């Protein structure tokens, strides 16, 4: 366990070393938020101020702000490192060391995220406070915040597992090119990172909620903003945990299958 805690601290140190890069990444969330604020303003004023997609204007803005910041906070990048490890033989060092690759990567990832999560959540609080002051409403409740924290932890782990599986593709594909980026964008859309899944309609939105992606962004944001309350939170948490369990199995299966193909190229 001690070696994985060391990996965790390595992740924290790495994020602290490149914190300017992180903040510029978060700053880039400002543009889509601004675009969405103006778009929703035009749509809600055009519709007479009533609810759209089952949400009030304040609730929609709270969702847009939280989702935009959250998916950037949880954003991965280690899939490119996995690809490098597989292609250049870097994986060999994990074979000879008494360390497992998946837990090692998970702890590095968690370490990186711990380093930025606190400041990112502070930023989200500030943005939501801005929404609250503008509409004289409270977009989040204390209960919502308390329930959000376990869903956030689940989202962090689930997001890691999804992209770990994506990274495993490198065992079979000789060239990755822009594939990881293509997959990332699709997952952001399907997870509700841009708009709530209700915009796709009842049938498609409902079907998308059966997939794991929504539990990585949309579900935690809905819990935070109070759109999902009561027993639905518990149901959602059960789905999130079930997906985490299933993704662990899939990750291990892909790792075992892929490592048999590994050629240990390079020095």
């Amino acid at each position, binding site marked *: 366990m001690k070696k994985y805690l060391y990996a965790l601290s390595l992740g924290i140190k790495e994020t602290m070393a490149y914190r*300017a*890069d992180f903040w*510029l*990444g978060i*700053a*880039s969330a400002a*543009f*889509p938020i*601004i*675009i969405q604020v*103006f*778009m929703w*303003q*035009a*749509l809600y004023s*055009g*519709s007479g101020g009533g609810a*759209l*997609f089952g949400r009030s204007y304040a609730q929609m803005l709270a969702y847009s702000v939280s989702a935009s910041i959250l998916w950037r906070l949880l954003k991965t990048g280690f899939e490119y490192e996995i690809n490098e490890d597989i292609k250049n033989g870097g994986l060999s060092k994990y074979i000879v060391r008494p360390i497992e690759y998946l837990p090692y990567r998970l702890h590095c990832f968690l370490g990186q995220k711990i380093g930025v999560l606190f400041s990112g959540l502070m930023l989200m609080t500030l943005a939501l406070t801005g929404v609250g002051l503008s509409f004289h409403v409270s977009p989040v409740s204390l209960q919502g915040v308390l329930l959000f924290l376990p869903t956030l932890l689940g989202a962090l782990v689930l997001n890691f597992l999804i992209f770990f599986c994506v990274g495993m593709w490198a065992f079979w*594909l*000789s*060239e*990755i*090119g*822009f*594939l990881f*980026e*293509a*997959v*990332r*964008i*699709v997952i*952001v*859309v399907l997870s509700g990172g*841009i*708009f709530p899944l209700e*915009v*796709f*309609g009842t049938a498609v939105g409902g079907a998308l909620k059966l997939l794991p992606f929504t539990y990585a962004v949309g579900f935690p944001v809905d819990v935070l903003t109070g759109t999902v309350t009561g027993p639905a939170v518990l149901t959602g948490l059960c789905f999130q945990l079930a997906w985490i369990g299933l993704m662990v199995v899939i990750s291990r299966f892909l790792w075992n299958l892929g490592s048999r193909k590994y050629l240990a190229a390079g020095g």
Partner: protein
Amino acid sequence: MKEIKKHLILWGLLIHNSLMSQLEYRANFFTGIAMELGYFLAKIVYMIVIYKTGVPINGLTPDEVLVFFGTYMIATGPYAGLYMMNLFDVGRQVQTGDLDLLLVKPVSLQFMLTLKRSDLSIFTVDVLLGIAAVTVGLVRMAVPVGLLDMLGYLGFLLSGSLIAYSMFLLPQVLAFRLVKTNSLAGLVDSSWDFNNLPMGIYSRLVQQIGVFVLPIFVITNFPALFLLHKMEPLYAVWGIAGPFVWFLLTSFLFRLGLKHYQSASS
């Protein structure tokens, strides 16, 4: 004129070389298409929202908004396919001293630095999807499009592209001083999405800033405004003059910035 012709021929050769290199590593070509389709999905979701609500956006019907969106996709073709990747690479070339090799070539340094590589898969996907969206929007509205409309539309697309090239090159000039500008380039790049929706959704003040100060809205709004016969005369004048003003200003600042370049190679 002779210099322009020489550079245009050279640009054609560079595009040809990039295509050959891409076809050698076909995964890049096809995953480039997949990536652009992914981005298209992320952008078309905005149109899904607008069509689902069916509400006019500040006087623009969803079909009219689709014409703006299609124009945005067409303009994204040259931006993402022809020069964006070069702009992202300026900082690295300054940092590693690779710029030295370009300095000794008997062609414009700005030209080589910003148009050396291209990705025709990205360019083609964006332009085709954009044309499809504009066509669907126009057909649904049953708007007749004459030859003059087409020529004006293409003209404003070209001038918008020139403005985009100049605007997005400007932050890279800082690379000569700051050396590492990747994050800054990423930040500026994300502002491209301001064109995803018509500028009519923004307040009047934001519109004026986006047209005359940092002319991000000129890039895709002007061609669509012209096609839909909603172009204000002042905008038409700025749409023609603006690109030249910005291109000359950026070229001047580029040459000024270059004086700060210190070769990092051995």
